[in-house]
């Protein structure tokens, strides 16, 4: 029990710290690499929630796919991008970011108030699921359940998302073709 608590706070601190670095950093490449760290910490948090398959998918898809894609976009768009950015950030840093900072902080305060007032740990469906022993425990194998449910309960969203993925793939390939090749 205590090890879980320690791991939760460790992962949460890593995730929040690296996310804050992403928000504060002016160096683009550095913030992308810190986003790696955030995603890994989140994968660790998913493991703590006993969702090991989602954690592996997070590492494979996000870290292996999306971040490599973002890095490719950097390297394809050239060095002018980076130098142009550094010139821009020199002027009026504090003032033009103050509204965004205020909005984010105030929204966070509202969210925390809602979470504390909602008292979600005593919600009816959660206590019901605890009473019916419908809670995932540490020794359970969740991958079986996900596979069976994906092919029975959630077959329609599964197929819809596969078509959407194909459409996104074709659309991305169409968008990134060279100018002038199109008819």
């Amino acid at each position, binding site marked *: 029990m205590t090890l879980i608590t320690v791991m939760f706070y460790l992962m949460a601190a890593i995730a929040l710290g690296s996310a804050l670095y992403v928000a504060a950093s002016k160096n683009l490449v550095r913030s992308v690499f810190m986003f790696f760290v955030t995603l890994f910490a989140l994968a660790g948090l998913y493991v703590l929630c006993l969702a090991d398959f989602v954690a592996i998918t997070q590492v494979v898809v996000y870290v292996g796919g999306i971040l490599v894609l973002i890095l490719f976009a950097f390297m394809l768009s050239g060095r002018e991008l980076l130098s142009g950015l550094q010139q821009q950030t020199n002027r009026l840093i504090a003032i033009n970011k103050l509204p965004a900072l205020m909005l984010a902080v105030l929204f966070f305060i509202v*969210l925390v108030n809602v979470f504390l007032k909602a008292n*979600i740990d005593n919600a009816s469906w*959660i206590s019901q699921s605890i009473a019916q022993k419908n*809670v*995932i425990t540490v020794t*359970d194998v969740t991958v079986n359940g996900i596979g069976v449910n994906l092919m029975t309960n*959630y077959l329609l969203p599964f197929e819809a998302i596969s078509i959407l993925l194909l459409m996104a793939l074709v659309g991305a390939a169409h968008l*990134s073709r060279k100018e002038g090749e199109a008819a």
Partner: protein
Amino acid sequence: MITLTHYLVLSGALFCIGLYVILAKQNAVQILIGVELMLNAAILNLVAFGRFDKLNSSGQTFALFAIVLAAAATAVALAIVLNVYRRYKTIDPGRINELKD
């Protein structure tokens, strides 16, 4: 004991950091990273609540769907960003202020 409220507060903090990144950055790629942060906050909630649904495993399934959707959205968004960079030589969303012709 780690309760659901812990996860809710953590994901709320991540969501607000993503919100700040979207509002404050002047670079389309960094804004995309902010969107990914917000999506990850939502996925963390799905996973944390999915723990209480063993039979249907709805939370984990929809977390997987959300991850796949994020991947598709990122691929299209980066293709758009590359096109915009090719045409305007900048990816600051505030300075892209003219149509094609």
